[in-house]
């Protein structure tokens, strides 16, 4: 299991344990982390599972793929380190990952 810390827009935090191989979105949903909507169920179609990867982790998570980038364009307030959590697969080297969430996914 690997640990991920989710930081909400209001500053509250929750650490969850995730089995490697699951997406960050699946981990958030199964652990009751609010703010990850994922209306399309992880098919990179809705853009409502956006997170911001903390700067220190970006090299390990990598940047958004082309489809992700195109989806993220739906959001007005773009930020560095943004990813769609359905496209981020958890691995052992991401143990300790910290991501923050936007105030809204719309």
């Amino acid at each position, binding site marked *: 299991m690997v640990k991920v810390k989710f930081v909400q827009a209001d500053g509250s935090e929750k650490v969850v344990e995730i089995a490697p191989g699951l997406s960050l979105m699946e981990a958030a949903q199964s652990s009751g982390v*609010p*703010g990850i*909507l994922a*209306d*399309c*169920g992880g*098919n*990179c*179609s*809705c*853009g409502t599972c956006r997170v911001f990867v903390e700067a220190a982790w970006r090299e390990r998570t990598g940047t958004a793929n*082309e*489809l992700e*980038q*195109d*989806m*993220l*364009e*739906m959001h007005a307030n773009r930020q560095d380190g943004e990813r769609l959590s359905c496209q981020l697969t958890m691995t052992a080297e991401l143990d300790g990952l910290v991501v923050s969430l936007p105030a*809204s*996914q*719309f």
Partner: protein
Amino acid sequence: MQTLAELDLPHVAVEDPAFAADPVRHFREAKGQHPWIAASDIGYWVHDYTAIRDLLSQDDKLRPAYDGIIEIMGAHGTPWGRFTEQQMISLPVEQHRMLRTTFATKFTPRFANQLRPMMQATIKRMLDEWAPKGSFDFEEFASSFPISVMFTLVGAPVEEIPAIRASLETLGLAFSMDKSRIPEIHEAFARLETLVQRIIAERRASPEKGQRGDLLDLLIETSDEGGVPQRQLEDLVIFFFIAGYDTSKNVLTYTIRLLLDRPDLYERCAADHDYCRKVLEEGLRLFNPGSVPRFTDQDIVYRDVLLPKDTMLWFTLNISGRDQLAFSDPDTFNPDREIDPLTRPIAFSLGKHMCLGQHIARAQLQEALHQIAQRLRNPSLDGEYGWRPYPGAWGLKGLPIKFTPADAIPEPA
């Protein structure tokens, strides 16, 4: 646990024209008898917002029920029946995933944003022609917009728009479950299929192939790279026309109907491009055309009720935003309403079948509303309107309006 047969379910006459005029009232009455499901002659209707979310997001336990519609309509073995049963949404899981993944890159917000100048030019051209009239049937006007955008996207000859629009009008009524429409449905499908096969063949043979960079170029290129069979490429383009026609047209028409009662908001739409987006999102909560059919693919127990495998369920996306349990003051049109993430509107469905064209639809509706509000000033209702059949692509039938023609407001530099 109870079976559906043991429940004393209300019966909703969804095929009745009186039902189409006010489904919200009928489903609210049904809710008094059972909180989330009702029976009808064409399947069960899940009409509670939370139940829709809970069930429709279970992709692994449901399958699209378009074969069930073809069964009811007695259209097995016909070209329209084949298409309906084999279109992308109806394909087996792996085939669907492969096709959807292949084409997803062409339906992103970025791609939709790139199309906005073309969408603006299209609606401006239409308004140049229609606005001087001073009055017209808004639904008829709106019906020319999405099809004009779609024709531009695939490079289809504009002189064929009237005939194909008539075909799409007919095909949009195909899921109303009225068997008397079958002959005209077949005729309409044949016309559309012929057009799609011809434009693909002509593009493949053209020296311009790959040079125009329009959606058809991109779809041909993507399907060739992904090894997509020609038949599935044709079906996707046919689906693109059918799915994109009366959905956008009906939403735009209903949004204008809402705004006729709110001239203050309409005025703001003329001046504020971004506010149009909020107006449309709130409009989609109050109304959208879709009720989606699914079969249960296994036994499902929900709220202690057994839904046996192969039960046909309809999900009322179209009025889900009017649920009194999920939304406060649900009948009030308020674009500044705070969206609760737990009860966000679900007009474009949920899960792996979420509408592929939603970003294109949102972009073209926003561009259209902003221009319309500038050019058709002080609109008011100019007669009566009716309603389209409830199952399938529901919406207003006709919307006579009168207005003061005006020039566009210059955009800020």
